[in-house]
């Protein structure tokens, strides 16, 4: 929490400086973040808000958005809990914020979405990837990550290109995000692959021996296993899968873009997953990671830091286009944004329902490091419609 209050202090001090130089009080963009700084979503929201704060500090140091609007940021920890998200969001909205940041998962974000819509304050989730979030969350809810259905299209197309024919998917009905393999299953089947079976798990289940025995009993054996499980489920699953002697290709998604995945040794070797970007030499992302290390004195260990940074860039572009800090005006401007230059990718909201169009990256775990597999553009005709449930 100390970091938060320091950031807040810095933002307030800068805002005060802004006032001193003649800017009026209403020229402040108040951003409130109901963010999971602790608990299960902390591996995503923690770095996301670190990146976000970097962007805020940079913009404020340069005199505010368009030299006009200073940014004030307040972060409340929601401990990865949906009920806490609603409480924190209400508190922030009552405090008169112009923009709300919700947690990096669709489910707690839903709890805040209705409140934001009612208050006509645009809400953004840094890392939520369920395409249903902006659809069910209302006009004021935006996502900021490649959608689950788009990620699944990219990974399923890649699997087919690699010659894999027989897939098994493991999903959890507990959250929207963990049902991503169902999109994979649709695309994989549409491209001529066979989905030999699907298993479910409970988040936090830990023991996957029963599911794995079922995978092993499949005849013919599967050559690819796809899951959107993340910590602590994914490490447990992949270790037990390899221990059982199953050598099929494992495909995951953005939730496993975390240091644990790269520290699993042999078990995670060769795992391929979709995420939001990769620091190729000379790229903006590489420069961002270098800067992150300069600011925080340690490397950013996931893409989520960059995703948080990009989210602030999107909000900046929205405020610039609207030339206002009024919630409804920002919302309308963001909905028309095209090709906002982020460090991970160009980001477009125009023509979408609030799920941005942006690049998807395929990464392979190799010797405990990330290896770029590709950044293919998915075939729009293949992308499954959001699965409403």
């Amino acid at each position, binding site marked *: 929490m100390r970091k938060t209050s320091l950031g807040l202090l810095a933002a307030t001090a800068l805002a005060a400086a802004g006032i001193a130089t003649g800017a009026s009080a209403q020229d402040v963009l108040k951003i409130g973040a109901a963010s999971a*700084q*602790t*608990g*299960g979503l*902390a*591996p995503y929201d*923690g770095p996301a808000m670190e990146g976000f704060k970097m962007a805020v500090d940079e913009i404020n140091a340069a005199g505010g958005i368009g030299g006009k609007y200073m940014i004030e940021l307040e972060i409340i920890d929601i401990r990865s809990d949906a009920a806490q998200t609603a409480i924190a969001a209400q508190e922030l909205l009552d405090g008169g914020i112009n923009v709300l940041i919700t947690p990096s998962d669709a489910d707690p974000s839903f709890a805040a979405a209705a409140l934001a819509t009612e208050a006509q304050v645009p809400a953004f989730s840094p890392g939520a990837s369920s395409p249903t979030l902006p659809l069910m969350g209302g006009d004021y809810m935006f996502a900021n990550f490649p959608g689950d259905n788009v990620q699944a299209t990219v990974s399923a197309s890649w699997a087919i290109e690699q010659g894999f024919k027989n897939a098994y998917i493991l999903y959890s*009905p507990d959250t929207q995000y963990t049902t991503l393999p169902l999109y994979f299953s649709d695309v994989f089947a549409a491209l001529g692959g066979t989905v030999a*079976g*699907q*298993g*479910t798990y*409970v988040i*936090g*289940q*830990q*023991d996957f*021996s*029963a*599911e794995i*025995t*079922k995978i*092993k*009993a499949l005849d013919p054996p599967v050559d690819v296993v796809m899951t959107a499980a993340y*910590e*602590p489920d994914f*490490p*447990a699953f992949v*270790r*037990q899968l*390899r*221990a*059982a*002697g199953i050598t099929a290709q494992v495909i995951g998604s953005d939730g496993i873009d975390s*240091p*644990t995945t790269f*520290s*699993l*040794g*042999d*078990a995670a070797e060769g795992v391929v997953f979709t995420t939001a970007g990769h620091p190729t030499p000379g790229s903006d992302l590489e420069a961002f990671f270098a800067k992150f290390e300069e600011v925080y004195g340690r490397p950013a260990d996931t893409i989520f830091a960059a995703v948080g940074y990009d989210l602030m860039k999107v909000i900046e572009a929205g405020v610039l286009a609207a030339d206002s800090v009024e919630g409804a005006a920002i919302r309308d401007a963001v909905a028309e944004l095209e090709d906002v230059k982020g460090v991970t990718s160009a980001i477009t909201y125009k023509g979408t329902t609030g799920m941005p169009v942006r690049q998807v990256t395929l990464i392979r775990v190799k010797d405990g490091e990330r290896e770029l597999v590709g950044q293919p553009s998915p075939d729009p005709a293949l992308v499954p419609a959001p699965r409403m449930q």
Partner: protein
Amino acid sequence: MDFFLQQTINAVSLGGTYALLALGLAIIFSIMGMINFAHGELMTTTGYALMFAGLAGLPFVIAAPLAVAVAIGTAMLMERIAFRPVRKGSPATMLVTSFAVAVILQTLFQNLIATRSQPVILPDALAQSVAIGDLTIGVNQILSITITVIILVALNWFLKRTTLGIAMRAAAEDFSVARLMGVRANAVISGAFAISGALAGAAGVLWVAQRASVDPLMGFVPVLKAFIASILGGLGSLTGAVAGGFALGFIEIFLTAYLPEDWQPFKEALALGIVILLLLVRPNGLIPAFNIGREKV
């Protein structure tokens, strides 16, 4: 048949871990009439001990017993600092105290160690398996089954053959009379916490060996499972806790193994449904404590 055998091994392995956890809860309940919801945090402590031992370069064979020792120490400290002052309080007071201890420990882990989950370095052998005929048994599973058996045998010996063990059994039957016979309350309760810490530590090592990471809130799921298992087995009954743990393991594994695909999303609900049905038939649990409902402490 192979499929069935393999799933049975899976169930024994999972059930064994649940049994260790449920035993840890039961041993405290049998003596103090308290469910210790901070039991999960003892596992988390074990996990962090393993993590730090790994970072310090200690081999797993040394790190694991060390981690269990840390859990025993933490459990005894927990009793001395938090539970002894409220020992004469109502069961509700002790229950709330245990929740408070759990939350305080979680917050300490978050603030002093890390909010995010930390990788634990484990020997590669733990991620391997042994083939016996058509069966594949994970080293992890072998470890889990072996440790469970050793602990159950050792605990049985301890409770039946040692003075402290006999005193603990006496205290579980009737604490007041046991004290009249010269059994020292502090020693018995402290001993019960030490054993419960050892059980949590052993279960914690097995749990972490499976997931290879540790986070501040990791104790929640296992303590919940242990709670279900000990209720199913019969609260306060040690044999009941073991039976409940294995029963829960078997129910979970076999539902996953044989439930049709369309029903899979409901397996957790079905498992709890079966537990409720069993409790309807046997309201005091599978093997109830014979002195159920008697005043404790």
